[in-house]
């Protein structure tokens, strides 16, 4: 079936069966590869995208449920104030190691700062809990969120 997706401000017509995870439409149909496949069961957060501004796990979001919603991926984050601040903080602190989970980390961090511009350490730990990083860059993720908060406040 043909489905119309609103993604990063553009409309994309894609051919996909109902039940297809949004993740695989983004990656294999639209060939936008910043959104990652890590577990397929919403346990690692590498596939995090925003649907109407809310972080969701795209591996467990089915294409027929997206409807008219606005989907935003890592590729469009630099166009947003919060996204740009988080990316700047990530580079300043060299948060990344292998980097494979970091698109998802940044999408979640932007979600957190959107609803909570000055999160406490506990807020960060609670919100980012579902984003796994096997390199264990967590100390810098925590510091990166705090730094992004500072950048946004300035």
């Amino acid at each position, binding site marked *: 079936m043909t489905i119309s997706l609103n993604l990063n401000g553009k409309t994309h017509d894609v051919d996909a069966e109902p039940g297809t995870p949004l993740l695989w439409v983004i990656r294999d149909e639209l060939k936008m590869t910043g959104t990652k496949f890590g577990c397929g069961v919403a346990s690692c957060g590498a596939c995090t995208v925003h649907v109407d501004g809310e972080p969701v796990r795209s591996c467990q979001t089915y294409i027929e449920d997206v409807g008219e919603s606005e989907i935003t991926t890592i590729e469009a984050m630099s166009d947003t104030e919060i996204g740009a601040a988080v990316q700047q903080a*990530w580079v300043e602190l060299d948060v990344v190691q292998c980097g494979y989970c970091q698109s998802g980390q940044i999408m979640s961090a932007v979600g957190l700062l959107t609803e909570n511009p000055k999160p406490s350490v506990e807020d960060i730990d609670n919100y980012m809990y579902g984003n796994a990083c096997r390199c264990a860059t967590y*100390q*810098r993720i925590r510091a990166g969120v705090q730094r992004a908060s500072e950048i946004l406040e300035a």
Partner: protein
Amino acid sequence: MTVQTTRRNFLRGGAATAAVLIIGSRPDGAVAAASGDKAMFNPFVKIDAEGTVTAIIKHFEKGQGPATGLSTLIAEEIGLRMDQIEYEFAPSNPKIYNNLAFGPFQGTGGSTAMANSYQQYRTAGAAAREMLIIAAAQSWGVEASTLSIEEGMVTGAEQSAPLGEFVAAASSLEAPAAPRLKDPSEFRLIGNAEVRRVDSVIKGNGTAQFAMDVHLPNQMVAMIARPEQRGGLVRSFDDNGSKEVMGYINAATLPNNAGVAVYAETTWAAMQARDALEVEWDLDAAEARSSDEIHSEIMAALEAEPQYNVSKTDLAATQSAIGDAAQVVEQAFYFPLLAHAPMEPLNCTIEATADGGVILHDGAQMPTGPHFALSQILGLPMEKIQINTMLAGGSFGRRATPDADYQTEAALAFSMTDRSRPVKLVWSREDDLRSGYYRPAFGHKVRVGLDADGAIVGWEHRIAGQSVIKGTPFEAMIVHEGIDHSSVEGTADTAYDIPNGFFGLTDTPKATTTLWWRSVGHTHTAFVMEVMMDMAAKAAGQDPIEYRLGYLTGGTKDQQRLAAVLKLAAEKAGWGNVAEGRAQGIAVHKSFGSYVAEVVEISGNADSGVKIENVTCVVDCGLPVNPDVIKAQMEGGIGYGIGHVMRDQITLTGGAVDQYNFPDYEPLRISDIAAIDVHIVPSAEAPTGVGEPGVPPAAPALANAIAAASAELRVSAMPMVENCVDFV
């Protein structure tokens, strides 16, 4: 007209030639240069006619930082800013890009990337600098000794010009045999904590390309249906269900009968089609045992006289000394199978080239292995195979299989097609956890005799587990007199002056497919050594740090450096001055040439729940090339070491793995460790490893902290959550 002022233009010289200067150092130390697209000899540095300098990185980048580190060495010696150098990964060619620690084999591992590249890459950069300067000196009619290169500009008393202007002339010069390396006092980039990673931007904006991101025109995705029990073989399969899946193409039994390749147009279609496939397996030769049996076998092996006398000492003498001791501290330990679980599920893509060869796109940790495997399977000469090494989403050892396991699967899947379409092999997370290669299970049993003053008078240490190395091409390098060094490293070779030490090893039969796992044998040996030292100190009524220092007084370099990191860790962690409700544990260990001490501070205890409040780490890894990357590796190593002992294990029931995905193999999460504080010991010694050495002391330091908080409860079987320790 708009003039772009990109850094390429900044470096662009006046000469509009097509010359390319390629410089590198031969293994024998000589240096050669080649120009243009002629045969290029050992190239680590490429400078094109526009003056763009590119470092050719022979180690793959799984996050541990060689793209940054090796680029830094080249930039330092030539005289560039970090934003004036680009990087690309080396092609597969073990004659040129071999790991000097591995022999004629190209690969990354053993925390050797910087240690084996430090002189090689500096020499290559220095040779480029000298050739460019000679060319400039000839052009300007001045003495070469009056010129230098700073920030990409060749500069003398009278003139200054971008180095790109001299690339064409320099490329026709003979390379210097022994270029002068910069003195450390001249370093601007090496050791500079402000030097940033070269891959941060692309990994934060979604543009970094991992092998999983390969989308070649007309490519197919292949997934392999494998038996639940390793070693099972395909008897037959039925793909009627798969045919209902949109995008399903075909399925075929792999030539080695190890599985069925399912081909589809997309990853999702391949996943669904594989789920719908019905396979009948021949399990006669498959693994059938359970972890309980493996555990019993290992613990029983510890009771028998060890198969190998690792320390080459007299067991009877040790037992006699312990028999005369005033008190004996005794403990048995068990470490389960562990998966590596890199964030990027394994995958690679093979495509045919117009000349009848293939390209493998892969986050290749040891390119020589898959290069050879593809040659054999596809019936192609080595020179017809190219390997495009891409960024790797983690490894922790998993991508370095001696049998090139997943690349072999891809080659087999490709070999069954008409080769007209690229084949991308993709593993799921379930494949990764269930069909993987594991850190072998190991057991230790230790008896330490103490005299009336608490001093060690004898140490009997038995180790049992499955060898990782035997039966692999690495056997000749690592197994000596039957002893797999990777099973015992960190024990008999301890720097502690232990009187009457005996260390013995027994190989247990193959339980499943095993593999080195970040820090290899040290994952269990450091735990046992450091917990036993802690228990001995407590039994002696002495401070654990002072007690350890008492066994590091022999004056060897190892002892001095271990003592130094211990003392500094104690100072930085405020050892002994903890708040009410807090407890500390310490461990120190040498691995991969580096010395690391870690103090774990916790609140709570095993009953009420342990919270890891802080980890203080002190590392001496020789001259720190990139201090911030070193800190990051220590942070990551601590997380990797602690995360797994907290709650992870792979178990088998009837040969089948019990875990499926992350909920059953729960990764370390952000809230598990509240803070990590890393300190680097200043050093002028040669650089040593950083990717692995942060791992070994972390778990025993945690165990020692838990013991201090929990009435000396010694958690000695992993994971801790299965053995009386709760975490909050």
